[in-house]
């Protein structure tokens, strides 16, 4: 790891000031991606602004028809939250499947969403559920937030404060994990709210999380696994690497979508 200066702000406002003063600085949330990246010298921020002691960034509450999760809320707390399990069980199950137990005890939802790793789990939930990402400056719709691999709408000095998920009528997540890394080779989050069906795919796209128009069109009529039979997803723009070809990933998308729909329907 290269040297950096460490800052431990007590408020988001202080954190934002520090961030604007340190152009090459980075925000440290749970550190489960950033610290390994720094150890490999793939990232060398001049400063780390640790949100671990900043007030008001953790916690889960239901506000009307939304579940609002603080940015520094750990994966384990989302996975075990009675509020999340009751309102969006698919989201709790997704959190339960991130990394391993020790990583879930430390990693945060805000960190995952801000990082927008192309194989991360949370971006698919945010996109499929039509979440709103609330920063210290503004509210950003998930549709506008994720802008490609590791790229988001976050501007300089902007920090995620919380994420608000509208409660769907049905939702579930299914992933096909890489057998070694356990990252999503393909992960599909399906959500139905009224007549609106959204299907978000992680792990597969060479430009990060995206919505599968093919699966959404198939499910618009009837929200059941049968509707996805015979659906073909184009392999263009999908990842190809030593773990899977783009054609295999394309094949997996409707397969995982089918499993997710079945799960969402409680079958």
């Amino acid at each position, binding site marked *: 790891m290269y040297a950096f200066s*460490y800052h431990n702000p007590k408020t988001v406002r202080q954190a934002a000031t520090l961030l604007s003063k340190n152009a090459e600085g980075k925000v440290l949330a749970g*550190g489960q991606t950033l*610290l390994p990246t720094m*150890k490999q010298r793939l990232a060398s921020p001049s400063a780390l602004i*640790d949100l671990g002691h900043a007030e008001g960034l953790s916690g889960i509450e239901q506000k009307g028809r939304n579940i609002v999760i603080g940015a520094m809320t750990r994966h384990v707390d989302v996975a075990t939250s009675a509020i999340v399990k009751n309102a969006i069980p698919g989201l709790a199950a997704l959190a339960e499947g991130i990394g391993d*137990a020790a990583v879930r005890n*430390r990693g945060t939802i805000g960190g995952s969403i801000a990082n927008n790793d192309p194989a991360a789990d949370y971006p698919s939930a945010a996109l499929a559920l039509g979440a709103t990402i609330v920063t210290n400056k503004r509210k950003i719709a998930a549709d506008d937030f994720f802008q490609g691999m590791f790229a988001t709408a976050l501007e300089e000095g902007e920090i995620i404060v919380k994420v608000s998920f509208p409660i769907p009528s049905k939702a579930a997540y299914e992933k096909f994990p890489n057998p070694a890394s356990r990252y999503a080779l393909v992960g599909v989050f399906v959500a139905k709210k009224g007549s609106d069906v959204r299907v978000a795919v992680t792990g597969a796209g060479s430009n990060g999380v995206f919505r599968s128009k093919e699966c959404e069109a198939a499910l618009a009529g009837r929200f059941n696994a049968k509707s996805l039979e015979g659906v073909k997803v184009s392999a263009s723009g999908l990842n190809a690497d030593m773990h899977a070809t783009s054609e295999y990933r394309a094949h997996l998308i409707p397969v995982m979508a089918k499993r997710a729909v079945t799960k969402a329907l409680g079958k």
Partner: protein
Amino acid sequence: MASVTMTVNGKQVTANVDPRTLLAQFLRDNLHLTGTHVGCDTSQCGACVVHVDGRAIKSCTTLALSCDGASVTTIEGIGTPDNLHPMQAAFRENHGLQCGFCTPGMIMSAIDIVNRKGHALDEHTIREELEGNICRCTGYHNIVKAVAQGAAAMK
């Protein structure tokens, strides 16, 4: 250098550290608590697992400075050679270790599983929950047995 204060195994410690210092390095190099191991240094293997404020975390993937004000428990803090923690005793009885390198992390993770999931753990749960702890000797069978027995004994 920056100052950090934390409670480790019940004792308050304060030190000046380079901000880059990982919790694992702080425990091993500053406090000479070498029971916490560093296996992979890439957050895969779990040999470095300790408890921070009651939760199992990978100390090779946490800055010491992030633990300012926290309460840390390491393998040295849970039992003594004459009075083993029930989970340590279960690993010994079930031959849940061979070389022993992964054992401190296994035991700290196992106690965390019990804290989260209770004392009656089935094999499937234990295997899923130990996903982040790698052992290259035992083939896991005896570790799974040990965790189940230790969990019951912690009641």
